[in-house]
């Protein structure tokens, strides 16, 4: 797990620099082998990542935009969502800053962005149908799309397996 995360970060960095010299570890070079390059790149880019704040982010195929939402685990813990405060478009945020809030069962909870960037779209469906977050938290209930400032930030997050282990630990 640890080595995969390191490889991931180095790989993402090499995507922007287009330089092999920055990749210190041999396994990164293997990932960059011509035959597997396209496949490895897209598989990694499409993988959904999770934060300890229970948000998820998924990169678009051009890796410039990320879609953000709250995890199914969080949606269940929140209970019936009755209001969603959406971020405004063009809002510039740093990783960990609030990009919105939800109210459920008398509880106000902030939603944090997993990565830095600029908000390019908010999910207007949630204005009229906030319960979409409960019905489809990791698909139709997405909160916002962000123009990602540094794709490397995403690689440091948990994959589905690691997040599942994280929530099981929190519940125990």
């Amino acid at each position: 797990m640890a080595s995969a995360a390191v490889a991931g970060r180095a790989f993402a960095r090499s995507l922007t620099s287009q330089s092999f010299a920055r990749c210190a570890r041999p396994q990164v070079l293997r990932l960059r082998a011509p035959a597997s390059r396209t496949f490895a790149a897209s598989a990694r880019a499409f993988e959904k990542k999770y934060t300890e704040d229970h948000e998820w982010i998924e990169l678009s195929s051009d890796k410039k935009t990320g879609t953000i939402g709250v995890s199914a685990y969080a949606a269940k813990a929140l209970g019936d969502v009755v209001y969603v405060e959406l971020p405004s478009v063009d809002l510039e945020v740093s990783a960990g800053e609030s990009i919105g809030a939800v109210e459920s069962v008398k509880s106000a909870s902030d939603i944090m962005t997993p990565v830095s960037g600029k908000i390019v779209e908010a999910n207007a469906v949630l204005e009229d149908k906030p319960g979409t977050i409960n019905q489809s938290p990791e698909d139709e209930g997405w909160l916002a799309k962000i123009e990602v400032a540094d794709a490397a930030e995403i690689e440091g997050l948990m994959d589905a397996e690691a997040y599942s282990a994280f929530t099981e630990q929190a519940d125990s």
Partner: protein
Amino acid sequence: MIFRIPACRASLGIRLSPAARLHARCYSTPASLNHLNAKVQSYTSTSSDPYLNLSIEHHLLQTSPPDSAVLFLYTNRPSIIIGRNQNPWLEVNLALLNATSNQTAHHVLPSTGLSSPVDLVRRRSGGGTVFHDSGNVNWTVISPSAAFTRDKHAEMVVRALRSHGISRARVNERHDVVLDQGQKSASSATNLSPEDTHATPYQDPALRPLKVSGSAYKLTRARALHHGTCLLNSPNLNVIPHYLHSPAKPFITARGVESVSSPVGNILLENEKFEDGVREHFAGMYGEPEGGVIEVGEDWLEVEGVRKGVDELKSLEWTYLQTPQFTFSSRGTADAPVDRLPGDHDAPLVEFTARYGVVTQCNVQLTPDSPSIGDGLIGKRLHEIADWTEVLAQPESGSHHGSRWAQVTEYLQRALPRV
């Protein structure tokens, strides 16, 4: 240390008597801040300022260690506290807030029984609107979110109340504390465990319980803040409904959170006894607080985060511009249509949409065929409209629409008064 003392004078001097100022100077770095890193902390406020108390509470949420438990007790002067995502025009009779100085308010309600203005505060937690005064003690528990449930501290309050003989108290399905109103049932009394904080022998399906404590929550990644009111001996129960009844309610369709109104009652227990009971049961759950019970108050205005919190909560932008989108229509809501403006099929019409407190769409027609006179309303902040005759274009003198214009502006002035 040296340059903190003048700062303390500057910010506190205007409010406090010389003796009190001297006292405050001693705490220019409040000694009560010394226990912010403790595992178990217990605070009681000496202030009745709702803005300050809510900001101290928020500061405790933000700064206490992730694994700590914090109790905070405070009592506010008369104030209306709306939830984070509520609409003040829908929840509150805004004309009454300045009842002592406001002629309209005198007209609507000759005597509110309250001699000073009532503060309107939007808090940071979710939930509905509540009225605070000297007969209501607010209790807050901040604890790790991992072990949190929405009932656990309401149950703590019920145990505290029962320890003072309030045996009718229980937690209901909305996480509130209610007093059951029935006769004691012998059969259920024998079947019920005294430890069951969700049932009493006084439950009677025919008699609605009285709500005495409402819950609201603010959740962050590691921490859960649960606060509640506790109505012990409010002198204002008869006037509270007037304050919480908005004249605009029949005309508003709102996103966000609408309050659920419940019959309320006083527990008739002294504030100090309730506070002692809550402290005891809090210690029973989390252990004895380090440093004992710590008094906090105006000296915490020295803390930057608290002072900024107070400034934000006091701002009209926070109170009014944080309102979720809503529409106002003189024809009422889809669920309950009304004809507020008389005239059958050719009645005047007022419709607008306000997004975050600013009018974004508007249609005001004096007759069905006439153009809208409401263009001047678009872009206006609703809470800044003092006089509706100034924002709606007046028909030319001699126009037969003059009386309709007067009718529309008077209607709006009543429904959406100056705040």
